[in-house]
């Protein structure tokens, strides 16, 4: 299944989808494609299930990345599809926006077991609560890291004390 087919299928299912391209190669020019899909947070499991259904091989889960967008936290679930074939792989990203007043989303570990590290990381770095996540320990931060401090946020919950460590730091 190609990037365009995935785009079409998801569009038919009512998702907002766009495709980005980037050229690579010098003599043999190829296009590296990425598909971006906007997903409501209630639908994240449906979207992952649908993707698994469409993909010939089991979709390869890469990582969840996040950014703080003011009132919202945006999560990006990155998958890759079509591996094993020459020049046919592409990236599929599910974009999910969560309001800061209610940072909750269903865990996808029941569908993709490899997502567990990523969800644990997002939980501690961004303060997103993953429902039904089987393991809620810290992953990278220490056990005694204070509650309510989320290093990757850009609001009042970001760590402030750490900044003092760096002399000559501008802020």
């Amino acid at each position, binding site marked *: 299944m190609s990037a365009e087919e995935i785009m079409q299928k998801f569009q038919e299912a009512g998702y907002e989808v766009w495709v*980005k391209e*980037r050229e*690579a*190669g*010098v*003599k*043999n*020019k*190829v296009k*590296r494609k*990425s598909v971006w899909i906007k997903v409501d947070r209630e639908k994240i499991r449906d979207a992952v299930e649908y993707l698994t259904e469409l993909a010939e*091989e*089991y979709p*390869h*889960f*890469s*990582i*969840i*990345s*996040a*950014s*703080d967008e003011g009132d919202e936290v945006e999560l*990006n679930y*990155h998958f*890759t599809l*079509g*591996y*094993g*074939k*020459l*020049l*046919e*792989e*592409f*990236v599929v*990203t599910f974009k999910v926006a969560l309001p800061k007043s209610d940072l909750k989303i269903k865990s996808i570990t029941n569908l*993709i*077991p*490899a997502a*567990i*590290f990523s969800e644990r990381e997002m939980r501690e770095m961004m303060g997103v609560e993953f429902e039904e996540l089987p393991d809620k*320990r*810290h*992953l*990278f*931060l*220490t*056990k005694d890291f204070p509650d309510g401090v989320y*290093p*990757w946020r850009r609001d009042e919950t970001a760590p402030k004390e*750490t900044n003092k460590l*760096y002399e000559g*730091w501008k802020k």
Partner: protein
Amino acid sequence: MKYEVPIGPIHPALKEPIMLKFTLEGERIVDVDVIASQNHRGIEWIGMNRNNPVQSIYLSERICGICNFCHPACLVMAVEEAAGIESPERAEYIRVIQGELERIHSHLLWAGVAAHELGFDSLLHYVWMVREKVMDILELINGNRVTKAIIMYGGVRRDIKDEHIPKIKRMLDYYKQAFGKLAKLFLEDKTIKMRTREIGILPYEEAIKLATVGPTVRASGVKKDVRQDMPYFAYPDFEVKAITPDMLTGETIGDTYDRIIVRLLEVKQSIEIIEQALDEMPPGDILAEPKIIKLINQIKKAEGEAVARYEAPRGEDIHYVKLKSGFEYLYAWKVRAPTYINILSWRPMLLDMQIADIPIVAASIDPCLSCTNRVVIVRNNKEEILTADDLHRLSVKKTRRLLR
């Protein structure tokens, strides 16, 4: 009776602080738990809050000393896509050569470590002696053996000059000769075969389910290689093919031995790629925008996001970057190193194995983790401290036992 053996936070088989908790019944491993929170440096935080994008290149070089080209290359790829920067053709070729030189030295480093874990220290010293040749070339063309500071947004910082080429070719010839000997030492040796065949098996389905990457997944028979599937830089010109162990032995088991085969064959593949790249390298500029201030301003004005993927020696690196117009730092930056996802595969590999197999199996995914110390055994609620040497001795003992 069950008891727990924590390995780490610091241990020689794991080159970075991480803790593994094993539950054992006698010598048999029945459960494995990974505790990663040992030393978090907050590199992404620094990139998002303190460094400008150019400084972040040098910072990302320090994510891993061995993959010191992969991470900056991946970051540069992401930022170039998000900001719409193109790099000259010659630079794309130099990037390929740098990447492959790094693969050679990284795989040889791993081969030495694997030999050491098995108690073959003469082989360790031989492999690392062989590795010095590529390190000399890295020093020659970069001025530094590690943290080479070669890549930049829109190109590379140093050219490969005409006088370098014969020296690089001489190195490649040396490796072609050495390859036969290395393959013989690693693949035909009876003891190495006994210690690695059918040890730490990762089946095909499990490898895919756990999203394993790099030589670890290829050794399980999955033909997955970013250079083949979604090539970047000048890689489409080379038509790289993913290497699986059946190319040599005709079968795929997915054990530690297969992971040795994949890495050895990849060294050979890298030599071929470098040879072709040197012959076909186009002339021209190496940097699109030599003025750094101008470059920083261009990135500062840019708006966009991108995911970049790079086939590092250990597997696939992924960097996600988001840029906001007027924002001085990277607005969002997420790094996923190959080991991040590969450590999940330790569990299926280690279940039902013996304590003495821990070092070689843990090392077989080539974890990018940092150095030495002790192990605590909690037995009947009493703590006994096993030093790294003790654990290493257990592994050597098993080799000796098999030799008899």
